[in-house]
């Protein structure tokens, strides 16, 4: 198998700023169809899926395509999720605002209802969730080893050939969580001693 060239963190093809720059690519419906579905659901909908399946990427892409979008991020919040949510909302919420909430599963039942109440005067509420139920499901995000291979080819064209033979196993080992796959691939390219690089080199 090819040896992967070791590189600095800022040049690592799997550095987080490069992963964050990946655009969501609809796996079935087109953007126009997704936006039409949102309209049909009166802008109250959920993007559902497990960790690392692209929910946040899709939510951010939807927010970018929506006028007066308010993006509320609860992942990694240092305060309580409800406090984090309320502090990120504009005051007052106006009829033109659509609130996009990332990691809404972090809110308990009471917090979720308070957030819904706070956003009630807006145009809509779209949230990412691990499981369906709180809002009608707009998209069920899934991943595949084919998608992982495609993204690896885009992110690391020079290394893709060397990485390719192990991607299926990597995908299975991380249960389809692409974020974890990319973190391990980062380590491979960083040449971290004692880490997966030894398995790959």
């Amino acid at each position, binding site marked *: 198998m090819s040896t992967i060239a070791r590189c600095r*963190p*800022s040049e690592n093809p799997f*550095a*987080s*700023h490069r992963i*964050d720059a990946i655009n969501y690519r609809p796996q079935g419906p087109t953007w126009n169809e997704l936006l039409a579905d949102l309209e049909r659901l009166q802008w109250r909908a959920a993007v559902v899926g497990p960790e690392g399946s692209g929910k946040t990427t899709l939510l951010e892409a939807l927010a970018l395509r929506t006028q007066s979008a308010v993006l509320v991020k609860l992942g990694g919040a240092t305060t309580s999720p409800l406090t984090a949510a309320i502090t990120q909302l504009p005051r007052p919420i106006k009829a033109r605002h659509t609130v996009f909430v990332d990691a809404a599963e972090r809110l308990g039942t009471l917090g979720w209802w308070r957030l819904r109440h706070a956003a009630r005067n807006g145009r809509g509420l779209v949230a990412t969730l691990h499981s369906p139920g709180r809002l009608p499901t707009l998209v069920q995000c899934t991943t595949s080893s084919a998608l992982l291979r495609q993204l690896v080819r885009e992110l690391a064209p020079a290394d893709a050939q060397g990485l390719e033979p192990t991607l299926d196993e990597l995908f299975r080992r991380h249960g389809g969580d692409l974020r974890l796959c990319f973190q391990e691939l*980062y*380590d491979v390219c*960083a040449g971290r*001693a004692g880490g997966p690089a030894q398995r790959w080199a």
Partner: protein
Amino acid sequence: MSVLELHTAGGDTWFTPGSTVSCDASWHLAGEVDRLELRLFWYTEGKGTQDVVVVAQRAVERPESSGHGSFRFRLPEGPYSFSGTLITLKWALELSALPGEETARVDLLVAPTPVEISIQGLREY
């Protein structure tokens, strides 16, 4: 399209911690610009959450369509520019025309010596 330019005095990009960075900014603005912002900041790239810390900021409110200005920033004593296994820490100056996304940027090396500090080899000791 607006044209923004940013240069450090003498084209220097290496600065010792605690020293002063002098820079010249010039602009030719197309369309309505409310404010020009010049930011001195550091940020990380690598694995995990990206950190961005704005250390100092200057603003030109309601700028003329063309203009220029000179600015000075005193650098703090740290953090140094460095590159390790998990992250690289970089410094930069950035000029932005707001609202909008047009920017001009100069990357800086902030360290006691003109070479980025590397901590890659620490594990060998």
